[in-house]
C-alpha cells in the first residue's frame, strides 16, 4: 500500500538532496571542526559556510547571530531561560495560550521560579487581540515570546507588528518568536519586517532536514546568557561539538525551501484549498479551525463534529494516510488540544479534530485519494455515534445543545 504522508507539521521526509550533501561528512570528512590538523579544515569550513548561507536567507544578518542547536525545543529553552537568567531586574513575561509546549512549559517553569507570566488568549478564529496585547505590556516586562505560525492550526500571528509595538513601547523588552512551522514557508527578513525580533527559533526536521538539528538567532547585543556550557563552540554561546553533517543538511534544506518558496506556496496552497473545499462540500458539520485567520498554506485543521479523532486516524492509516488529531485519545494525556480549547472549539468537535499538513512532496493524486476515503470514514463513525441521527444525516437535536458547552 502506498503511504500518503500528510503530517508534515510533525516531521518531514529528508530531501534526497539533503541526504546527499550530508553523506561525505559522515564518511570521509568526519573530523572535529575544532581540531588543528589540516584534515579538519573541511568540516570547519562547512560549518562556517552553512552559517553564512542561512544568515543570508534570513535577510543578510551577521553569521555569528546564528547558533546551531539540536532542535527547536532546545532553541526555545535556550532563548527563554537565557533571557531570564541574564536580566534579573525584570520579572514579567508574556506569551500566548496556544504556544507549543516547548515554550508553554518553559514559561510555566519561569512562573515556578517567581516570574509573572501573562498567557494571552486568542479568539475563536485563533487570532490574538492586539489591544489586549498592548494592555498586557508592563514597565517590568522582560520578554515576549510569541510563535509565528501555530503547529496545530497553522494560524499566523503578526510577529512583525507585535515586535515593533514592543520595541516602540520599550526597547529593553526582548522579543522571541518560535518560527519552527513558518521558516522556509513564509518570508522572514530579520533586517526588514522582522528587524524588531531579538530571538528566533527553528528546527531542521520541519523543512526536510533530519531530526537532531536546529538553530537560534540571537540578535547582536541582546542581553542573553548561554544555556549550554562546556566548550568554546559557537563563540561560547552553545557548547558542544558541532553536528557537522546535520548542519550541512540544514543549510541544504534551507536552500531548497527558500529557493522554491514561492512556487511551493502556490502549488501546495492549491492542494490544501482543494482538500478543504471538497471535504466541506461532502461532509456535514465539518469546520476548518482557524478559518477566519491568516494561516499557513500547508495546514488544514478540521473539526469533525460528533466523532472521535483517534478512530478517524486509525481508519486513515488503514488506507496508508498519515495525519494527526488534537483529540484527547491521541495525546496520551486524556486532555484535548490546548490550542483548540483556547479557540473555544466546542467539545462536540475538539475530540474529532484532524490535522492534515502538506509538504512540497504531496501530489494531486494523493489529495484526491484522501477526498475519496475521508468522507466515508467520518460517516462510518457517525453511524456509531450516540450524538448523530444517521437516518437524516444530522446531529440529534439534544446533541446540538452540547455545542455551546
Amino acid at each position, binding site marked *: 500500500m502506498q503511504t500518503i504522508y500528510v503530517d508534515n507539521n510533525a516531521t518531514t521526509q529528508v530531501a534526497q538532496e539533503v541526504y546527499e550533501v550530508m553523506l561525505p561528512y559522515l564518511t570521509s570528512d568526519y573530523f572535529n571542526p575544532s581540531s588543528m590538523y589540516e584534515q579538519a579544515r573541511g568540516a570547519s569550513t562547512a560549518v562556517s559556510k552553512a552559517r553564512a548561507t542561512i544568515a543570508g536567507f534570513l535577510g543578510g544578518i551577521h553569521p555569528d547571530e546564528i547558533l546551531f542547536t539540536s532542535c527547536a525545543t532546545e532553541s526555545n529553552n535556550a532563548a527563554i531561560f537565557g533571557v531570564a537568567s541574564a536580566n534579573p531586574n525584570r520579572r514579567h513575561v508574556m506569551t500566548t495560550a496556544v504556544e507549543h509546549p516547548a515554550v508553554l512549559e518553559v514559561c510555566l517553569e519561569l512562573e515556578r521560579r517567581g516570574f509573572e507570566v501573562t498567557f494571552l488568549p486568542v479568539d475563536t478564529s485563533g487570532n490574538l487581540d492586539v489591544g489586549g496585547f498592548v494592555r498586557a505590556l508592563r514597565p517590568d516586562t522582560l520578554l515576549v515570546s510569541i510563535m509565528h505560525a501555530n503547529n496545530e492550526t497553522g494560524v499566523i500571528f503578526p510577529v512583525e507588528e507585535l515586535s515593533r509595538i514592543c520595541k516602540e*513601547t520599550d526597547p529593553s523588552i526582548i522579543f522571541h518568536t518560535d518560527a519552527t512551522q513558518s521558516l522556509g514557508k513564509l518570508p522572514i527578513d530579520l533586517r526588514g519586517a522582522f528587524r524588531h525580533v531579538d530571538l528566533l527559533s527553528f528546527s531542521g526536521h520541519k523543512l526536510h532536514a533530519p531530526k537532531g538539528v536546529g538553530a537560534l538567532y540571537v540578535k547582536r547585543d541582546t542581553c542573553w546568557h548561554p544555556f549550554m556550557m562546556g566548550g568554546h563552540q559557537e563563540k561560547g554561546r552553545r557548547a558542544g561539538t558541532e553536528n557537522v553533517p546535520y548542519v550541512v543538511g540544514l543549510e541544504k534544506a534551507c536552500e531548497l525551501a527558500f529557493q522554491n518558496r514561492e512556487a511551493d506556496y502556490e502549488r501546495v496552497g492549491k492542494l490544501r484549498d482543494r482538500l478543504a473545499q471538497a471535504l466541506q462540500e461532502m461532509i456535514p458539520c465539518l469546520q476548518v479551525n482557524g478559518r477566519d485567520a491568516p494561516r499557513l498554506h500547508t495546514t488544514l485543521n478540521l473539526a469533525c463534529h460528533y466523532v472521535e479523532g483517534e478512530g478517524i486516524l486509525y481508519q486513515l492509516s488503514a488506507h496508508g494516510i498519515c495525519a494527526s488529531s488534537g483529540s484527547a485519545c491521541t495525546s496520551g494525556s*486524556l486532555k484535548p488540544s490546548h490550542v483548540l480549547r483556547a479557540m473555544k472549539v466546542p467539545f462536540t468537535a475538539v475530540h474529532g479534530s484532524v490535522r492534515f499538513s502538506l509538504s512540497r512532496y504531496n501530489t494531486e493524486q494523493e489529495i484526491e485519494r484522501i477526498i475519496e476515503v475521508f468522507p466515508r470514514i467520518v460517516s*462510518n463513525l457517525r453511524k456509531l455515534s450516540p*450524538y448523530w441521527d444517521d437516518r437524516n444525516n444530522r446531529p440529534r437535536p439534544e446533541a446540538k445543545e452540547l455545542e455551546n458547552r
Partner: protein
Amino acid sequence: MAWEYSEKTKQLFTDAVQGKPGTHLGEIENPDGLGEHGSITCGDALRFTFRVRRHQTDPTQDVITEARYLTFGCTSAIAASEALCLMVEDGDYTPIGALKITNADIVDFLDGLPEQKIHCSVMGAEALRAAVFNWAQKRGVDLKKLGVDIQPEEQQDGRVVCQCFGLTEPYLRRKIKELNLHTIPQISNAIKAGGACMSCHHTPGGLQDILDDIWGPEESAAASAPALPDGKGAVSESDAQISPYQFSKKVEKVIEEHVRPMLQRDGGDLEIVDIKDTAVYCRLVGACATCAVAGTTMKLLVEQALKDHVDERIRVIAV
C-alpha cells in the same frame, strides 16, 4: 502516539465501523434496559441498550436476548462496546447475572488493552450497571433486597473531585476499591479522573487524599507532571503607578479638536487603543488605515499635535 492494540481489538473496531453482520451497532427501541456512561466533553460516551425475554412471573428470571450500543470514542472504546454486547448476548444472562461481567473481563475478551485505555473497558462495565439499574426500575425489581448494590445517585449527589470529567468522591471511592487502584496514574488510566488538568491530584480532598484514606498514607503515589495553563487567559493589569485620567482626557481632547477633523475630511478616523505613561497606542481606521502615507500621518499629524498640545515626551505607537 501510536497505540498498541491487539488484533482482536482492531478486528472488532474494523467490523463495527464497516457495519459487518453480527456487529451490535445501534439502539433498541423501547429497550428493557438503557444505560449511559461518559459524555462528549470527556472524549467518550456510550449508550447501551438491551432487550430481555420476559419471565411470566419472576422478573429476576428475565434473560437478555439482544444488546446494542452507540459509542462516541476512540478505537478501543468502540471495540470495548462491541465486546460488551457480544459477551452479554452469548452468556444467556439474566440482567443481574450479567453484572458478573467486569471491566477486566472486557479487557480479557479484547486480548488486553493499553494501560492508558483501560478506561474504555470501565465505561462498558459502568454502562452495563446503569442499564441493569434501569431494567430493575422498569420491572419493579428491588436490587437492594437481592443484595445488589447499585447507586446511580452517587454521580449526582457526591462532591465533585475531578472537575474535568465531573467525577464525584463516592464514585471514585467505589472504583478505586473495585479496580484496586493505588496510584494517581492508575486512576487516570482506568477512569480518567485527574487525567486532564491534574489540579485535583494534590489538593485537599483530592485524589491523593482519597488514596491515602483508602490504602493508608504509606502507599504514596507518583508525583504528577505540572498542569497546562488552561483558563490562564486573563490579562493582568498594572496601570496602577500612572495616574492617567487627566492625561487621557487631554489626549482625547487634542485628538478631537486637532486630529479627527483632518482625518475625517479624508474619510478616515483614529481610534485610541490604549495610553500607557507617555505612549499613546492608536489605530488608523477607514480610508486612513490603507493609506500609503499612514506611517507619516501618525508621526507628523497625530504625534506632533499631541507633543505640541499635551506633552513633549509623548510617543505615538501604531497598532
